């Protein structure tokens, strides 16, 4: 398929996944707030931290209060990772490949965008934020469902899924990183009594609480980190995401000869790390250091996907552009 098309479909999915993660994180935090009675700043600043964009936020000189953070993360068009910016970017990508995706998927995404753009959607978000962010979550899930059920699972679909899995692995790692750091600043405290409400919210931020319960008896920080990094079956665990991304790559290359391909090499190494490491090793290394390294690897994989599929340098191409 066309390189430009592959690029667009890959990014379309990354953007929707990004928007969904922001929405889920906000929703969980809103819920958590109901159980808390401490100051609001310490609730809303970590949300901005998980996006990795505190600098951008602070440049605007805004306080970390609910309304400012919600507006920034949801509606700010100047902030490229706000929900609206992400959905707009996804839709712009979709518009350039609508002959490739199914009409159902296009219409859904278009409606998603049009509704967010309506003037009263800001009012809706402020009046009933729980419901508002729930709707965003459901629309993202509907998007994925439509993609799985109305598009052929060929090359385009595999690029789409690969994009989603890489974005998701990155987001799960960020949620875990920030929350672990906040709730458990010192490693020695690993076995000290913990705030269950807070830790359950970490799981909920990855829609993981009930599924966690099915595999583990007790709620411990270590158990949670183990689950979100290493669980093979949970769809938002990093291990699962990397495994799925690798499968997509094999499907795209139409062979399991992944390792000879630059992206295959990188994905394979990361997969091996996740296959053969365990949570004790990770904690020994330092969770933050591990997750930081993981994010660098994911970025590198993304870069290599770009150079090997999307921006193929062609000699005739570059020559003619120079003339």
């Amino acid at each position: 398929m066309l390189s430009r098309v592959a690029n667009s479909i890959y990014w379309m999915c990354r953007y929707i996944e990004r928007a969904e993660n922001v929405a889920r994180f906000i929703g969980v935090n809103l819920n958590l707030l109901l159980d808390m009675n401490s100051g609001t700043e310490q609730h809303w600043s970590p949300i901005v931290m998980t996006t990795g964009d505190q600098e951008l936020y602070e440049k605007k000189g805004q306080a970390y209060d609910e309304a400012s953070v919600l507006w920034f993360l949801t509606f700010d068009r100047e902030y490229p990772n706000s929900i609206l910016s992400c959905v707009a970017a996804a839709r712009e990508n979709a518009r350039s490949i609508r002959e490739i995706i199914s009409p159902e998927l296009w219409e859904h995404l278009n409606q998603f965008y049009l509704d967010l753009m309506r003037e009263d959607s800001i009012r809706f978000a402020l009046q009933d934020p729980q419901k508002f962010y729930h709707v965003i979550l459901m629309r993202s899930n509907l998007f994925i469902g439509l993609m799985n059920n109305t598009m052929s699972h060929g090359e385009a679909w595999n690029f789409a899924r690969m994009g989603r899995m890489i974005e998701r692995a990155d987001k799960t790692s960020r949620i875990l990183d920030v929350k672990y750091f906040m709730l458990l600043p010192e490693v020695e405290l690993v076995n000290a009594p913990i705030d269950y409400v807070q830790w359950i919210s970490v799981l909920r931020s990855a829609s993981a609480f009930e599924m966690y319960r099915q595999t583990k008896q007790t709620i411990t920080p270590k158990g949670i980190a183990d689950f979100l990094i290493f669980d093979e079956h949970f769809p938002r665990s990093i291990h699962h995401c990397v495994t799925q991304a690798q499968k997509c790559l094999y499907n795209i290359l139409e062979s399991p000869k992944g390792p000879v391909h630059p992206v295959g090499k990188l994905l394979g190494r990361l997969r091996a790390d996740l296959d053969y490491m365990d949570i004790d090793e990770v904690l020994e290394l330092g969770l933050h250091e591990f997750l930081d390294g993981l994010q660098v690897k994911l970025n590198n994989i993304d870069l290599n996907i770009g150079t090997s599929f999307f921006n193929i340098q062609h000699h005739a191409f570059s020559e003619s552009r120079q003339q």
Partner: protein
Amino acid sequence: MVSMNTYDPEGFYDELFTAGGVPRHGAKLLVEKINSLPQDDLFLRQKEAEALLLKMGITFNVYGKDEGTEKIFPFDLIPRIIPDEDWQQIESGLKQRIYALNEFLQDIYNDKKIVRDKVVPEDLILSSQTYRKECEGFTPPKGIWCHVTGTDLIRDRDGRFYVLEDNLRCPSGVSYVLENRMVLKRTFPAVFAASRVRPVDEYPVKLREMLEYLAPQTVENPTIGVLTPGIYNSAYFEHSFLSQQMGVELVEGQDLVVDDGHVHMLTTKGLRKVDVLYRRLDDDFLDPLAFRPESVLGVPGIMEVYKSGRIALANAPGTGIADDKVLYAYVPQIVKYYTGEDAILPNVPTYICRDDKERAYVLEHLEELVVKAANESGGYGMLVGPHSTAQQREEFKKKIVANPRNYIAQPTISLSRVPTIAGKGIEGRHVDLRPYVLFGEDIYVQPGGLTRVALKKGSLVVNSSQGGGSKDTWVLFPDENKD
């Protein structure tokens, strides 16, 4: 209840009514249906249809102010109906005209017989901005130049159809024909079935067949693409829609490279050769090496590949000369010259400003005439005399005197009208008709076409960029009970 019983054609030719409250033969069922709808139902259906178009993202981008914003192409629910006997004349007239224009293109880029025989003045051709010297001595695949045409027809007060403009470059709008039809079928299913309307849906199949026919004979499964300027082009939806319906690639200039004497697409698995391109990019932008050097939309070197016969382009570069608005005045003679027949579809009488006598007349009568620039489209560069201000007329006077070659003038035609939803009522609005013609192994005229409607009361300008909308066009099957 909205009743059409009191509808008044107000002295214009009306496509649905013969006189106040009296529907034409083929429109009876539709009018009865609309009359029987409960209060406000028609307006509700209109709103639903508009919401549907927005949801489907059937939009165009607006140029000029609010750059980058999208709008739905305004759409009116009440269809225009064309009876079989009118259609027969349109169809045969278009086939004749397109055949002749294609002969003309082949002739002027090669033998120039028509110039030697003094039917068309040579300087007129050579001075046209759309004449392409690069095409001289070239014969495109299968000798076809104008593969896709959208000819603008109008009907005057007397009920006769006239050709207003030939569009032989990249005429757009056919996707609206298909989408409007889909909406109408949902809205008036029963009337639709009973009225015996000819289907339009085979267009994408016919378009694909035509493109396949152009591929070099040695290529077995030709790779076909639609070349678009990109998502910011006002017709982007159509490019995407047609490629989806035909099952071919939609490509932009940045997706294509010339290598080893062929045009290739950049794919995730390397280069893939392209054999046929339905290009929706004007000649000027097609190849920066051959035409405008600053164009970033095109494909450097594609003209060389084209001239060596390794890729087919539809429409062929150079067809613009045949829809130069001054040359238009000569088309009846062109038809006669190449077919030996009189034109079945007449032209609108046209004054050519390069002729001293005709120019003098035009300058004297600007108030009654419509003046057009030779190479503008989309309703730009045009003066509608009866609706103009003294200042506008003065401006055009200067323009004409400064560059007479570039202008023509025509009497103001009272375009026919169709009942149209206006606020909470139904009023007559002026329309034109753009049928789409494909020239491949034979010539195919899609039964229907785009009916464009000037939604502003009294306006004669139907272009979407100037407040125009569209309607579904119902061409009826021959009447079974006629004999």
